[in-house]
């Protein structure tokens, strides 16, 4: 997968600049929102490994504006993404594995790096040499149809599946054989598909369990109650009595209180009403403002495009498209998502 470098839109670094350029035109606050989301990695530069501790500083100011305008900004973003042309300074030919020319964030080390990951469920191959690199502060979205291997990828990163091949590096360390609970403690948090709350425990107990081995950081149970205002009043309720959206919020809170550096979000939208999905994704800027890096899996492409700073599409266990949301055209996404015909243009890969 990593060999397809030449055809791949590479330099992630500069896209921020571009994006700001495109989106600034229609609406002013948007630039702020965008940068609030994505600027983070810039700052830590060499300090990436210790990213958590220092990240919160910069986005602070940007976050509020991001919050207020993010809905509009994102949507716009999605719309204006199509043309995708205006990136002169990206090097389409940049290599995948190494730094792309001109990109700022390549100075920082990826916080999460997956190389050539192959995973089998029994006889079935769920992932076929998938690679990805996630940089601090990024919102990295993996899209794909049912059965594309998205959840398997996240679960393998969390340690719940063992790969047959390939490696996973987190914060410069090889964690491929590390047990899931050790990974969680070291800062890889996950909101699993289908919420997976402790149903017989109360809301507060769920959060307390999440905080059992919490790292130091900005998130506390109180802070989660501030993020989701309804939660405090119902903290003594068992989670099995909550609605789907409320459960999803508790699941997010449970992951946050551990103060992860990388948060894996597996299909947040699953089984939720569109309005609820909007609301939950609307929380993302506020969460990101605390310095988290997000790797999310989403079947709902428009939702993913709205929030992502980097995009990767899986089809039947393989990467079919990778790039910034601003660089890929809806046609490319469609092809990569459904695999209807051989993808063309940048971002394509031999299927």
């Amino acid at each position: 997968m990593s060999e397809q470098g030449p055809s791949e839109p590479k330099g992630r670094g500069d896209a921020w600049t571009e994006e700001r350029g495109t989106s600034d035109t229609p609406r002013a606050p948007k630039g702020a929102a965008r940068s609030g989301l994505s600027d983070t990695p810039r700052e830590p530069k060499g300090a990436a490994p210790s990213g958590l501790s220092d990240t919160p500083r910069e986005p602070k100011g940007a976050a509020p504006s991001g919050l207020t305008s993010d809905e509009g900004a994102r949507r716009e973003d999605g719309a204006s993404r199509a043309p995708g042309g205006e990136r002169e300074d990206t090097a389409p030919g940049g290599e995948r594995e190494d730094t792309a020319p001109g990109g700022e964030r390549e100075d920082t080390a990826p916080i999460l790096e997956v190389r050539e990951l192959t995973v089998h469920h029994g006889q079935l191959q769920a992932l076929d040499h998938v690679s990805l690199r996630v940089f601090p502060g990024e919102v990295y979205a993996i899209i794909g149809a049912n059965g594309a291997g998205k959840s398997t990828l996240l679960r393998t990163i969390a340690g719940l599946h063992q790969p047959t091949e390939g490696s996973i590096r987190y914060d410069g360390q090889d964690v491929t054989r590390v047990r899931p609970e050790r990974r969680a403690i070291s800062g890889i948090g996950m909101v699993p598909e289908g919420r997976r709350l402790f149903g017989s425990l109360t809301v507060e107990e769920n959060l307390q369990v999440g905080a059992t081995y919490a790292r130091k950081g900005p998130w506390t149970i109180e802070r989660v109650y501030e993020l989701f205002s309804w939660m405090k009043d119902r903290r003594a309720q068992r989670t099995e009595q909550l609605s789907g959206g409320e459960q999803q919020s508790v699941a997010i809170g449970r992951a946050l209180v551990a103060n992860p550096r990388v948060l894996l979000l597996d299909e947040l939208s699953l089984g939720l009403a569109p309005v609820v999905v909007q609301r939950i994704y609307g929380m993302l800027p506020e969460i990101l403002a605390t310095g988290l890096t997000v790797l999310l899996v989403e079947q709902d492409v428009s939702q993913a495009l709205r929030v992502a700073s980097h995009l990767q599409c899986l089809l039947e266990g393989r990467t079919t498209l990778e790039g910034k949301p601003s660089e890929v055209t809806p046609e490319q996404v469609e092809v990569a998502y459904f695999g209807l015909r051989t993808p063309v243009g940048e971002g394509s890969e031999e299927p």
Partner: protein
Amino acid sequence: MVWVNDIIQGILVGGLYALFACGLSLMFGVMKVINLAHGDLAIIGGYIAVGVIAVTHIPVLWSFVIVVPLMAVLGYVLQRSVIQAALDRSILTTLLVTFGLSVVIENALLEFVNANSHSLGVNDAIITSSFSIGSQISIAYLLLLIFVVAVVVLTGLQYFLSRSRYGRMIRAVADDREAAQLSGIDYRHVFGIAAAIAFATVALAGIAYGMYSQFSPTTGTDTILLFAFAAVVIGGLGSLWGTLLGGVVLGVSQAIGAQISGSDEFLAGYIVFLAVLVLRPQGLIARKATS
């Protein structure tokens, strides 16, 4: 008045049955392991107490100070090794493995101890004496003590599970062990802790039974395990208060059965057991081991 006495005796014996059952209930509630070696492990507790008393000459009532920690350690070790290995394969495998464990323990006891019956502290005053209420009701101190211990153990366990950090982790793991892993919890360790607690109660059950009656290598399966099962099923699997209720219902029905005819004692208990299985298979109190 005879009936009142029967019921009181039944309730008190129910405390002993609840003590038999609570370890079984806990292990099922948390790790879905039906421990068929449960009774034999209680008997091991009894034999350890016999040995400890013979060597150290401590009073029988204090033997638990040594036996309970020993059994707890054994519980942790067995869970982390044999039982966990079985769990990793399938739930069904744990049935086979614990059944095998039961057979091994029974035969090892026959081989290395002997087939004779043992009992604990037959000459201690507290074990043999009783007090009377009126002319018809006589209450043995020992049975009263066992009942109180059972209530204290169950209350303590309930409190531990609902209030403590470890209790919360145990309930979380019982609900969803994968999600617990994502919160940094090593469920195998938590299972070990739960097994240690279960085995500690098993040790108490073994000592209590040794003082109340007498045991031989086969008592574990033919008495303790069966009564524990009956109490758990009557009360409701995984519910601690249900376990106490189940023990009491079993004890009372046996006492009433014995009053009707001496040979009906156990029959009456099993009839109630079957009736519950048919009419209310989830048990009288259907809830999880959790709050």
